[in-house]
């Protein structure tokens, strides 16, 4: 009998607060295997908090997060080795070269030098950055820096890629390139959770989680959310749903 594969990412009833401020309220959703899932929300919606909880930068206060069945609180090693992460702030060492940054990341995953070098060349070639391997990160453009961060996130062969607003501050061409590369990875079997507030990055086939003021307002394909909201497109659906939520909050 074939074993049932556990869900890629399962967020179950997660709540989080910073002092008196409630950042996440009973957030529940899952990322289906081999999908491009968009975590859509305005600034301050709770996307980065959710990423920090998923990667165990913060301890979970309420609820549970599982990555391929591994509880991030109890089996963080098993869970984290399945995940590639691109954080919202730039996290490369700008004084080191591209290759040195990748080698350092590989070491943090226990990958030996020879394997790391081969994989490093492989991912850099895929992202058309092989010729920049020896350049210091401080000499790269914003788009290239992001591409290197994605290359780094892929180095340990993760099965789930988490990207927190990876295209913010980039020009249109760089944004399109990054989106194209990441969407291609989904075709190769990697699941992607793409956090953004940029609605134009969502396509009708994407799986969308609409996060607003720490709550999940809707989840499903973009087309389904548009239909449920009775809107003409995802932008209108987003506005309609968030306004309805705020109105409900004011009443209560």
């Amino acid at each position: 009998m074939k074993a049932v594969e556990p869900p890629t990412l399962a967020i179950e009833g997660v709540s989080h607060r910073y002092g008196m401020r409630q950042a996440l309220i009973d957030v529940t959703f899952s990322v289906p295997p081999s999908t491009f899932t968009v975590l859509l929300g305005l600034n301050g919606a709770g996307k980065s908090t959710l990423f920090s909880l998923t990667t165990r930068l913060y301890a979970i206060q309420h609820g549970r997060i599982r990555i391929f069945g591994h509880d991030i609180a109890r089996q963080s090693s098993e869970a984290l080795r399945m995940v590639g992460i691109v954080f919202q702030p730039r996290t490369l060492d700008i004084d080191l070269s591209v290759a040195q940054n990748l080698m350092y990341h590989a070491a943090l995953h226990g990958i030996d030098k020879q394997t790391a070098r081969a994989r490093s060349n492989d991912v850099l070639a895929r992202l058309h950055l092989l010729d920049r391997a020896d350049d210091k990160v401080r000499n790269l453009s914003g788009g290239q820096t992001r591409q290197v961060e994605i290359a780094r996130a892929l180095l340990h062969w993760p099965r789930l890629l988490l990207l927190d607003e990876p295209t913010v501050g980039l020009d249109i061409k760089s944004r399109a390139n990054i989106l194209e590369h990441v969407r291609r990875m989904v075709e190769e079997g990697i699941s992607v959770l793409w956090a953004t507030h940029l609605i134009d990055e969502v396509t009708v086939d994407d799986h969308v989680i609409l996060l607003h003021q720490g709550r999940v307002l809707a989840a499903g394909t973009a087309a389904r959310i548009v239909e449920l909201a009775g809107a003409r497109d995802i932008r209108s659906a987003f506005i309609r749903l968030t306004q309805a939520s705020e109105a409900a909050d004011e009443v209560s």
Partner: protein
Amino acid sequence: MSTEAITYQARTGFTALQYGVCLKGIIWREGLRFLHQRERFVAALVRPLVWLFIFAAGFRQVLGLSIIPPYDTYILYEVYITPGLMLLIQLFNGMQSSLSMVYDREMGNMRTLLVSPLPRWFLLSSKLIAGMAVSLPQVYTFLAIAWFWEIEPPPIGYIAVLPALILCGLMLGALGMLLSSVSKQLENFAGAMNFVIFPMFFASSALYPLWRVREGSPWLYYVCELNPFTHAVELVRFALYGQVNWSSLAVVTGCTALFMVGAILAYDPSRGLLARRGEP
């Protein structure tokens, strides 16, 4: 990408070799950063050399030293302060490493380390070991220069002092790491460093023997006795002459363990001070 990348397999645990690769990688990165900051190396050497060449030259006429262990004869003041200056290098290095941790936290680089699947206690311990490793060539370079200034411990001392330097480097690095966890901003930590480095250095046996301190101020003597830096200095002083100061060894070992546990707890997401502030 290879199909190996997308084939589900429950990988559990890490081998000793993988832990070794990780430790080596962290030391390598710390070394690279150090090499990129040549000014840091020069500053690390100039500071104790100024004390040795200028301060000690002036004080040798003022401050008389009786014969105290581990010395079995009268010694020059320069000889007396050398262990303290070696530790001064390590103290600054420990604080500098921690300063770079605060910088990494502000710039986001720290996340790279903290989201590694290896256990966090191991990552932080490796970071400490890396910081300590960087301090060793600095100390030995200082000793090499000091040799031309008639600071000539027995040859065995150069080897015997290594374990003492490793232990003291870990203690001072762990103290810095602990302090970095409570400091929210780079500027705050840079300021806090002054409140740690100078009192620790001056209220110790680095510049004058404690019997002299007791003559001048009994309460300061007790402060010096309680200062772990005093014990680090004495551990290195004895080791440099091939001897072991057991009480200092016990204090330094205890403090290293205490500071390391404190730093690891402080960086723990569920218990640490960072978690309470809501930052990695």
